[in-house]
């Protein structure tokens, strides 16, 4: 096996498959730390909602279900375009790979745009976390707690979307350069895994934050 045939094979790996498997295991381990990072917030949310159900119920009515629903559709669609990007890389369809990566970035941008609309509405109404909360006319006390969790959870998730845009842009640059083939597409694959996890986290955030009963 010549060096030219495997341009991205690192010297400490025997085969391209071994290198790809090692990368994948590393990515999955990272994803588990992400699950536990968000997991802490989810557990905190569950405890506080259990202790203050009325405050959480009242507070969540300030969220716009329609916008939350649209953002869920946008993120699920971006997961689809991402997996199609991975498929295109596996099957060496370079143009389709570039188009699907661009679409994924576009969906991510729409998601953040809608999040911006939601956030500015909350800022305007004084629906802020912790001691910054100053919404007038509340009948149920303690609603600041809900917004502490709302901003920490969606904020951390939003940062992950931003990170995803950076990572996908890097993959896009390499795709345009023609780095990928059916033998080597690990970066597309691994960034795809990350992107799907960000989607999975939103799949739980949407009903828990927007659809409380």
């Amino acid at each position, binding site marked *: 096996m010549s060096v030219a045939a495997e341009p991205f094979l690192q010297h400490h790996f025997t085969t391209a498959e071994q290198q790809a498997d090692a990368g994948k295991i590393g990515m999955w381990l990272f994803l588990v730390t992400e*699950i536990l990072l968000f997991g802490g917030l989810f557990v905190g949310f569950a405890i506080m909602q259990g*202790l203050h159900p009325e405050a959480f119920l009242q507070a969540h009515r300030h969220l716009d279900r329609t916008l939350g*629903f649209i953002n869920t559709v946008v993120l699920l669609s971006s997961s689809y375009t991402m997996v199609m990007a991975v*498929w295109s890389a596996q099957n060496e369809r370079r143009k389709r790979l570039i188009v699907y990566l661009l679409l994924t970035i576009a969906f991510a941008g729409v998601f953040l745009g809608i999040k911006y609309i939601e956030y500015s509405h909350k800022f305007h109404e004084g629906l802020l976390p912790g001691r910054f909360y100053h919404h007038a006319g509340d009948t149920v006390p303690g609603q600041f707690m809900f917004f502490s969790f709302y901003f920490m959870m969606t904020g951390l998730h939003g940062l992950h979307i931003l990170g995803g845009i950076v990572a996908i842009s890097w993959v896009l640059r390499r795709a345009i350069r023609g780095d990928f083939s059916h033998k080597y597409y690990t970066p597309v694959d691994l960034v795809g895994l990350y992107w799907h996890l960000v989607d999975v986290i939103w799949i739980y955030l949407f009903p828990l934050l927007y659809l409380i009963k």
Partner: protein
Amino acid sequence: MTSTAHATSPGTYSKILGILLALTVLTLSAASMDFGAGNVVIALVIATIKASLVALFFMHLRHDKPMSAVIFVSGVATLAVFLTFCLLDTGSRERVRPPNATPAASVRR
């Protein structure tokens, strides 16, 4: 990795997206009805079905080597233990307290 590359077709991915979108509509319409204590259960069951579809098909766990699934499931299981024991704790504090004890006395020995 290359051996499993062609296991899933674009048609399958489209169908999975369709199911995911349908489940999102379902969870939204379920939220407009009242099932009492079942509300949160229904929402979480639908979310877990959606997350499983994403993990199995979009994240390729279905055709991947088992190591990825082992790592993923052990992470989720750890989170489940964390969540379960925290909720068992906070959910049972009132009941273990003697009925005639003052709140402060029952916490400190």
